């Protein structure tokens, strides 16, 4: 056996590309909700479960994919996306089970074109007060050194949460049955181990107590108490105190089972409560400590992610770089992305909000934006709202479209990509579509303060610019 593990063939096999194909992930489960959900076998999964494989041109023409047998040429060469996923290299029927992987491959390509970095999941909006979000705990890059870790740091209690992988489950996300199974199957048999650990902590506590009394009385500090020296009486007393101190007990349990941080508490009553406190009409019923976040982890509210929180979609820490237009120079906004109106308002039973499709991802319409504000458009007959959002436009070829700017993206614990978009800048749209003549210059002067200041000293040039002098000599032609 020893010779087998070191055989040269074995070494080669382990380093081979075929062996590097990861095993198939479990298919993501559909949403557990009372909504009517229509399952489809051919629908694109929320995240890929197989590796996408491609083959060089010369081998592709011969059907050679490095697999057990050559694949049929008809289905692999007569396509613009010769990318496959392999479900089984060989089956009982002596065929290679494969399918096209164009869906996720193209989605990734579109994502790279949109150029969005992955950030931590957004915080639940709790209050408009600054103190809740004081510690700079907004959306951060998932590659931030402080949170991109799988190992326990030794910096202290707070440092423990600065990782995204834990051994134990996220208790807040478990159903009642799952929690019961976890307790009976995995926690129960570790009871002796936990008792042993409690004895250690009891000895530590006793040592601390001894040290404290010695310091107070000015005596010499004695030997530390060992776990074996703890008597049963001492231990049962310690256990009783722990049962009353739930915070301390939870701390020990969390450390022992390596549980992810619990979600942060929500303010009671939401904004009504806050306003009443601010007005002074009501005394704060709860201690301010209770509504302070319990954990620093960005994944406390949503649960720890299953894979690395970037999901391999983007490896950039930020996408805050300037788009340099070949004609108009650096732009304040990147080129907008065309979004498809997947579902207009109130089209599906039980779902009233319209949905957009951006680069292969279904996103909610941005809130608080003019063009997407359906409430105001209802009162005003024309409004700024995109017509396809309210009603289906049957005469539009290819469906209704709208330009948006991708804002941020994160991956939820189920592996779904949550993309946030904002309304497209009309100037950026005009630059993209080559309609810069239609931009009203006066408006630009007013909105762009810097540009307005510059117009006295030098002629403003370019579009979407904060600082001029990048545009061409088209000033006279574009002036209204």
């Amino acid at each position, binding site marked *: 056996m020893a010779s087998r593990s070191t055989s040269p*063939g074995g070494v080669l096999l382990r380093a081979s590309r075929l062996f590097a194909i990861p095993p198939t992930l479990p298919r993501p489960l559909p949403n557990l909700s009372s909504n009517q959900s229509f399952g489809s076998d051919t629908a694109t999964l929320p995240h890929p479960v197989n590796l996408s494989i491609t083959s060089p041109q010369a081998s592709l023409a011969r059907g050679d994919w*490095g697999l057990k047998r050559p694949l049929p040429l008809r289905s692999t060469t007569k396509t613009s996306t010769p990318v496959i996923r392999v479900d089984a290299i060989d089956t009982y029927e*002596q065929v290679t089970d494969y399918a096209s992987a164009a869906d996720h491959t193209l989605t990734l390509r579109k994502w790279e074109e949109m150029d969005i970095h992955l950030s931590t999941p957004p915080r639940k909006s709790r209050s408009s007060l600054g103190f809740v979000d004081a510690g700079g705990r907004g959306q951060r890059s998932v590659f931030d050194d402080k949170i991109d870790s799988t190992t326990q740091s030794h910096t202290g209690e707070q440092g423990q949460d600065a990782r995204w992988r834990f051994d134990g489950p996220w208790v807040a996300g478990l159903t009642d049955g799952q929690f019961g199974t976890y307790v009976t199957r995995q926690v129960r048999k570790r009871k002796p181990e936990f008792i042993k650990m409690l004895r250690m902590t009891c000895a530590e506590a006793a040592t601390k107590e001894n040290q404290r009394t010695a310091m107070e009385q000015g005596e010499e500090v004695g030997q530390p108490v060992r776990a074996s020296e703890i008597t049963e009486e001492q231990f049962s007393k310690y256990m009783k105190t722990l049962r009353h101190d739930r915070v301390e007990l939870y701390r020990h349990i969390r450390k022992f089972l390596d549980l992810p941080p619990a979600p942060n508490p929500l303010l009671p009553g939401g904004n009504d409560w806050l306003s009443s406190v601010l007005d002074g009409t009501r005394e704060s019923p709860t201690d301010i400590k209770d509504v302070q976040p319990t954990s620093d982890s960005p994944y406390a509210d949503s649960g720890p992610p299953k894979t690395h929180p970037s999901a391999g979609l983007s490896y950039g820490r930020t996408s805050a770089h300037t788009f340099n237009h070949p004609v108009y120079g650096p732009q304040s906004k990147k080129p907008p992305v065309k979004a498809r109106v997947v579902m207009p308002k109130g089209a599906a039973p039980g779902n009233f909000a319209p949905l957009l499709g951006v680069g292969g991802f279904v996103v909610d319409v941005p809130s608080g934006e003019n063009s997407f504000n359906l409430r105001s458009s209802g009162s005003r007959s024309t409004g700024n709202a995109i017509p396809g959002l309210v009603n289906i436009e049957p005469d539009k070829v290819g469906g209704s479209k709208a330009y948006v700017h991708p804002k941020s993206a994160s991956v939820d614990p189920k592996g779904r990509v949550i993309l946030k978009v904002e309304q497209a800048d009309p100037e950026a749209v005009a630059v993209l579509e080559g309609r810069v003549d239609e931009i009203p210059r006066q408006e630009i002067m007013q909105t762009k303060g810097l540009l307005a200041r510059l117009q006295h000293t030098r002629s403003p040039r370019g579009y979407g610019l904060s600082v001029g002098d990048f545009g061409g000599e088209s000033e006279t032609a574009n002036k209204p």
Partner: protein
Amino acid sequence: MILRNIAIRHSRKALAEPLSIPFIRSLTTETLAQETAAIENSINNHEKETHSIEANINQLRITSSFVPPTAASEPSSEVSDNFNLFRSIKKRTKKLGSVVAPYYKPHEFVVNPPRPKDLTLELLLASQAHLGHATSLWNPSNQRYIYGIRQGVHIISLEAIAAHLRRAAKVVEGVAYHGGIILFVGTRPGQAPAVVRAAQLSKGYHLFDSWKPGAITNAEQILAKCRIKALDKDDQEIGVYERKLQEWRALKPDLVVVMNPLENYTLLHECGLNNIPTIGVIDTNADPTWVTYPIPANDDSLRSIQLIAGILGRAGEEGQRLRLEAAKTGVVTWQTPEALVRLLAPEKNKLEGAAKNEATIYSDGNPEWNKNDRSSRRRATGLDDDSEDL
């Protein structure tokens, strides 16, 4: 200046490019016809303008004495000049640029297959020779070749493949050296080029459509109309035995190499009945006892089959080369069967009288002419299978 004069003298219309609008289109489409007319008008206008300028210029002295060169007066060496320029540029820029590193060329496996000495574990791995079938399809007698299970399929040990392939290559080389008839069989779609190339290299025979059952056991009937030819030690045909060989039995192969034994069980069975050694590519679902020399490898991948057939073909080529080299020094590496010697004795005696020198060529001291015959039989169809007598 001179060129400008030519343009003026021969008017702009003569130098203008021919109209790119096809004639029929200009006839059929009304709008196009109008356009053509417009262009024609503008050209006429230009011509008129040119004439007016021409009149002015013709008054100059230099233009009045100028004679435009004609095509006949100057020998046109444009083509050869261009060609020489092209060659000189090519020669100068030949050493410029980057050198493309060796890269994988799939066709090389068939056109220029690797030799047995080039066989490496990496090559076998790259050719997918190690991939067996799904574990549920396995034949337990292949257990000794199997390295393990991965992704639901059995993985054949690369060392086992290399060792068995080298042994098979030695067998092919030995049979070729001793003048045996080698038959390469690969009847799956896509295997034909590899099998034909292997037969070409080893001067053997190939079969890529289907084996006719009984072509060995019932060869008298099935191969009755096939021709047998006699060769001397240098592979030159000897014509005098034609009539005698017509009476001779159908030949049988000395070695059969099968790329897909599962589909050719009949052939292997017939070989077994006639004590013909066989080499076969045994995947994890095949029975290794069907063939004499198994090569445990993937028989589904064309690349793996091309590699195995290529290496065996190269081994046969080497055997043939050694045999012909030995023949040049007078060493004959095979023996003609006794029965054939007896059959051909009368012709031999006749021939001996005619050409005495023939017998003295062979330095092995054996003046028997018949021993230097190599007989083979070729069917008229694409299927070529031959054998020597037992």
